[in-house]
C-alpha cells in the first residue's frame, strides 16, 4: 500500500492539566496531526486500564495517557496511582506483544500546550512507523487449521 498509513490514537486527558493543555495548544494555534482523539477524565487517577484495552481492541493503533506532573495533581497525589497502574500495564501489554511506543504516558501541565502538541506529533510518527495494530486481525483465526510441516533445516532456534 503506497498511501501513508494514518494511525488512530485515543488520548486520555486530565480535566485540570492536559485537557487544558490541549485547549492551550488550540488557543495558541499550535498545529499537530489530527490522528489523536481525546477523552476527558477528571483526573488521570480515573483512568481504568480497561479503557486502554478497550481502545486497542476496538481499533485504535495507540493510546496516549496524560496527567499532571508528579506533585502537581489537582487531587494531590492521584496521578501517582495513574503512574503505578501505567507502569504495571506497560509490562502486561509488553507480554501481549504490543509495542511500547503504542501506549505512552505524558505528564503535561495546563500551561504546556506546545509541549503536548509536540508529544502528540512524535507519538503519531512513532506509531505510524509501527504500522496498524489492527487487533481484530490479531485475534482472528489464521484460516489454515494446521501447522505447515517444518523441514528440519527450516526450524528456527
Amino acid at each position, binding site marked *: 500500500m503506497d498511501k501513508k498509513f494514518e494511525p488512530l490514537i*485515543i488520548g486520555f486527558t486530565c480535566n485540570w492539566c492536559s485537557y487544558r493543555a490541549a485547549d492551550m495548544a488550540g488557543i495558541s494555534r499550535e498545529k499537530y496531526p489530527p490522528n489523536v482523539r481525546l477523552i476527558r477524565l477528571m483526573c488521570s*487517577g480515573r483512568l481504568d486500564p480497561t479503557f486502554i484495552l478497550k481502545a486497542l481492541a*476496538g481499533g485504535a493503533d495507540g493510546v496516549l495517557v496524560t496527567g499532571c506532573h508528579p506533585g502537581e495533581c489537582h487531587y494531590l497525589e492521584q496521578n501517582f496511582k495513574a503512574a503505578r497502574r501505567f507502569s504495571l500495564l506497560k509490562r502486561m501489554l509488553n507480554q501481549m506483544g504490543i509495542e511500547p511506543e503504542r501506549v505512552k504516558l505524558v505528564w503535561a501541565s495546563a500551561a504546556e500546550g506546545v509541549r503536548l502538541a509536540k508529544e502528540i506529533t512524535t507519538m503519531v510518527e512513532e506509531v505510524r512507523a509501527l504500522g496498524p495494530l489492527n487487533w481484530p486481525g490479531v485475534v482472528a483465526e489464521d484460516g489454515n487449521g494446521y501447522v505447515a510441516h517444518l523441514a528440519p533445516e527450516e526450524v528456527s532456534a
Partner: protein
Amino acid sequence: MSKEKIGVYVCHCGTNISGTVDVEEVSKWAGENLEKDGVVVSRDYKFMCSSLGQELIEADIKEQGLTRVVVAACSPHLHEQTFRTAVKRADLNPYLCEMVSIREQVSWVHTDKKIATEKSKSVIAGGVKRVAFHEELEPLQVPINEATLVVGGGIAGIQAALEIADSGFPVYMVEREPSIGGHMAKFDKTFPTLDCAACILTPKMVSVGDHPHINMYTYSEVEKVDGYVGNFTVTIRKKARYVDTDVCTGCGICEEKCPQKVIDDIFEAGLGYRKAVYRPFPQAVPKYPVIDTDNCIYFQRGKCKACQIFCPTEPNSIDFEQQDEIIEITVGNIILATGYDLFDARRVPQYGYGRLANVFTSLEFERMCNAAGPTNGEVVLRDGVTTPEAVAIVHCVGSRDRNYNNYCSVICCMQSLKFAHLVKERTGAEVYNFYIDMRTPFKDYDEFYQKVLEEGAHFIRGRVAEITDAARMPGEEGKLIIQAEDTLIGKQRRIPVDMVVLSAGLESRADAKEVAHKFGISCSTDEWFIEKHPKLDPVATMTEGVFIAGACQGPKDIPASVAQGAAAAARVLSRIQSKELALEPVRASVIEEKCSGCRICNNLCPFNAIIFHEDRMVTEINPALCQGCGTCVAACPSEAITGTQFSNEQILAQLEGLLMLDVEGGLVSMLEPEMA
C-alpha cells in the same frame, strides 16, 4: 436503537470552526448516521453561544421533546455552563447536555479540512453515544463560612485582610514571624516614588493590629488543613513567646536589659544585632517581644532571667513556662500570601559573598540605607566607618541564569536603580550598574531610570564574570575588582570598586511545596504557587476556596502585590456574600451489594472521603468530602464504585463513538461482537 431523543448542535463559531471544518457536512452526517444512537435533530449555526443559538436548542427541546443535547463547539471549559443553562431554561436537566470541543481540539490545531471534518464527526459520535448514559443531577450546594484565613502578614496579606475585615467579615491572619509587615517593613525607600516604606506600611499594620474583625496569630504557623471550600478546619500552632501578651505593655525594658546580643538574620538580614528577647523592629505589630530560646541565656544555661527581673508589669509578663498553643479555627475561604525568599548569593561563589567583606546583598543594603537600620542609614563598608568611593551594583544575581533560576525576578532592575540613587545621594560615590537588560515597564518606572542616568550612574551591559580582590594592575590594590564583558563596546572590563551590592533575585519560599501540599494546591517547577488561569484567574487556584496573593505566586513588586491582595479579597467577598457555592456534582459512590470489603480503595483518597464499616464489612464514600477524581472508581476490583458524570458506561460509550471512523473517515473494523 437508543430510547433517547438526542439533538446535535454544531457551531461555526464564525469562521473559527467552519474555516477548517465542513460544519454543514458534519451536522448532516450526524443526522443521518447517528439515528440509531437516538439523534433526531442535527443542526449547525453560526454562533451556538449567541442567544439565538441557545433559543434554537430550547425550541427543539420543547417542540421535539429532546431528552439529550450534544453541542459541538469550543472547549467545555468556556461554554459548558452557557449551554447547561440554556437546556435548563427548557426544563431539561442541565446535566443531560454534553459539550464536545471541535474548536480548540480540531479546527484550531488542524489544517486539512477533509480530515478535520472527519475528526469532528467522530468527536460528535463520541458525545452522542456518551450523552445517552448521562443522568439527571443536581449541583451540590455548600454553605460558605463567613470567616477567612489569611496566611502571611506581608503587604499582600495585610491588604487582603483589611479589604475583607472592612466589609465586616471576620478574618484570621497567621504570620510566622513575631510581627506582621513582611519584607516591606525592612525596606527604606520604595521605588519609583522613593517614599519611605515604613511611613506607608505602618498605618496599615496598625489598623490590622486593632481591627475589630481581624484576629491576628503572629509567631504562629498553620499545622493542618481539613475540610473543603466553605468549611475548612485549620489547625494553628501558636509558638510560645514566653511573654504574657495580656499584661505586657511592650515597653521594651526587657529588650534593653537583656545581656545577650544576637545577629538578626531575619529582619536585619544578618547585618545587625538584636537581643535574645526582642521585637523585630520598633513599629512591630503586635508590640510584644518574644524570647528566642536558642540564644536566651536562661534557656541555655538556666540562669539570668534579667528580662523577668526588670519587667515592670504586675503581674510579671515574662513567663518561662509558656507552652506552644494549638488552636483550631473554621473558615470558608483561605488566602495564601506567603511571599518569597531572597536568593542566597553564596550560591554564586565567584561573586565572593561571604568571602569578600564588602560584597553585600540587596537586603543587607536595604537595611543599611534604613534610618532605623544597623548603620542608621549610613552607606558604609563592612568596617562600619569607611564611606565607599565606588560602588558596583550587580543585577540578575540568581535570576535569568540557567545555573539558578531562568525567570526574571521583576523587581531587581528597579531596586538596583533605587540603590544607585541612594548611593549617589548619600555618598556621592561612583556607581556602576551591571545589567543584562533594563526592565522598567510600569508607571513612572522608566522616568526613574532616566533620572538615575542623569544623576550620573554608569550602566554596563554585561554579565559579571567574577568579583575578586586579586589585584592585577595598578589601582586595583585593596579594591574589589569587577570583571565583566561590556557587550555594548565588546570589551572585557575590570572595574575596581570599594563596595558591591548583589541584586539577588526572588525565590519561592523554601517550604513552598510543603505549604502547597498542606493547602491542596500545586506548585510550578520553580515552586511558585500555580494560579487557576495565568490570565483570566490569577488569584484563584485549582482548589476551590484557596486563593493566592503576592509574591508566593511569582516575583512581584509592592503595587502588584497590593493589587493581587485586594483582588483575592474581592473574590472571597463575593463568595461570602452569595452564602452558598454550587459545586459540580461529580462524586463517587459505592454499590454495597457489590462490595466485598477487600479494602483496596480504603487508603486511596487524599480527602479521606472513604470510610470502611467494620460491622457490615463494606466501604462507603462520604459525598461531602469526595472531590470526584474517580481514582477509587478505577481501582475497585469489583466495579462496585461508580462515579457520576464519568461512569464506565459513559466513558466506554464515548470511546466507541471516537472509534467509529478512522482518520480518513472510513469505518473502523471493531472487534467482532462475541456470540451468545
